[in-house]
């Protein structure tokens, strides 16, 4: 299989590898995939409680080069975005950016799932219902 230069770059120099403190209130963790399927991604975000901006993101991935690249790219993209903005990241954006072939599209789907799972976990911890937009900080009344 021929890989795009971007996939090779993420594989050789994966961004934001590591883990954040899962028990922290500010951290959301998404663990998606299954060992039997040959892909497991763990994506974590650290969210600023005031601004809802994702200030840190870390990942670890068991999977092929495209899976590693998709999750590495996902951590780059979510950083600096608010959780709502991060939910707008689509797997097709990842496919486009990394020039993934059709047989590797599932890697991008998994990366999108990982972002959603991490945000979902953070929302749950912080009492925001799934699917509900995060309330903007309101002025004290």
């Amino acid at each position, binding site marked *: 299989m021929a890989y795009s230069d971007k996939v090779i770059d993420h594989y050789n120099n994966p961004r934001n590898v590591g883990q954040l403190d899962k028990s922290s209130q500010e951290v959301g963790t998404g663990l998606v995939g*299954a060992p039997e399927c040959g892909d497991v991604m763990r994506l974590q975000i650290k969210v600023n409680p005031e601004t809802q901006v994702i200030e840190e993101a870390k990942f670890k991935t068991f999977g092929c080069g495209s899976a590693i690249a998709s999750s590495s790219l996902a951590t780059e993209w979510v950083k600096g975005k608010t959780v709502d903005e991060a939910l707008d990241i689509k797997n097709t954006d990842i496919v486009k950016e990394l020039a993934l072939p059709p047989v590797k599209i599932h890697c991008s789907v998994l990366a999108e799932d990982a972002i959603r799972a991490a945000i979902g976990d953070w929302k749950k911890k912080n009492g925001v219902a799934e699917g509900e937009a995060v309330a903007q900080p309101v002025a004290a009344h």
Partner: protein
Amino acid sequence: MSTNIDGTISVPAGVHLPIYMDNHATTPLDPRVLEAMLPYFTEKFGNAASRNHSFGWVAEEAVEKAREQVAKLIGATAKEIIFTSGATESNNLAIKGIAEMYRERGNHIITQVTEHKAVLDTCKRLEKSGYRVTYLPVKADGLIDIEDLKRAMDDKTILVTIMFANNEIGVIQPVAEIGKLCHERGVIFHTDGVQAAGKIPVDVNAMNIDVLSLSAHKFYGPKGVGALYVRRRNPRVQISEQINGGGHERGMRSGTLNVPGIVGLGKAAELAREEMDSEMKRLAGLRDRLKAKFDGALDYIHINGSMEHRLPGNLNVSFVYVEGESLLMGINDIAVSSGSACTSATLEPSYVLKALGLGDDVAHSSIRFGFGRFNNEAEVDYVADKLIDVVQKLRELSPLYEMVKEGIDISKIEWQAH
């Protein structure tokens, strides 16, 4: 050997990249084989079936010499060798040809689950035309249980087809025992000998083999040529032809003979026989050297298949918690293959590894190393260092490895399969 600042490993003297270590897939042509073949492309171009001039006689003589050379490799006589286009054709001819010829006697065929697709798909095809096929399981070490074979045989069994050595895990089946049992029961025994012929001793009489498939390009001969051994005495095996035409090869395989290819097959067989004893020891040494290096440097590695009943040139290892394709990506100057789903079109991991009872995750982590005539110790050392380096890097990236190291039982996690 040293690691450079950018993490790459420097290439020692005597190693030329890329390194070919996938000798189960195919092997390079030995220059001595090429030399033997060359005249038969140009000045000795005759059709071996031309009976009335010297061009034909020269070609026929070369074919008959090759028939002797192939026969000698497996302890057969020249008249028992049929030339084909390769092992896929040989397997098709053997299985379909026997099934058709002995249809009156019965319709039951026994094979096993880790056979090559050339055997499995042929058997599946026969199932559609009224044959009954038993697929024996294998044990965790990749070997069949002889007791299972005994139990599977019935009065309708006409053919047992069990491979000599497996192409993925190199496991050698107990062919002599299988052959003995078949002869006691009056059942024909075919073996796909593709990975064994030219690599380890094969003796069709001592092992009671009735029909055997082999292929030249697996032992340093050319692609596109193979042979089928068909026993002529005790018992005489008959095969119904699958290609009709001029009645070549005693009517069993029509078609103008590929003379240069056959000459190459013959020469390759001769060289393999002459060099087999020393080559077996040398390859086992390379394999054990690689295994020892992995054992010394890495945890959670799993050898797939029996080490005892194994081809000298095969090592199949799962580097658990690292996915096979990502591993191949990190060693792109080394040609090996993986049982990972990601390397196949179907996204299913190797059916051979699954048949051993391995979890899919272990199958996804497997790499097959196939050592051959042109590999050396310096290459093995380079491959070992490179593999160890990449496995360690990928484990730094692996959430599974981290969890296992933290004492989490990953089999207890409810994974969201997608």
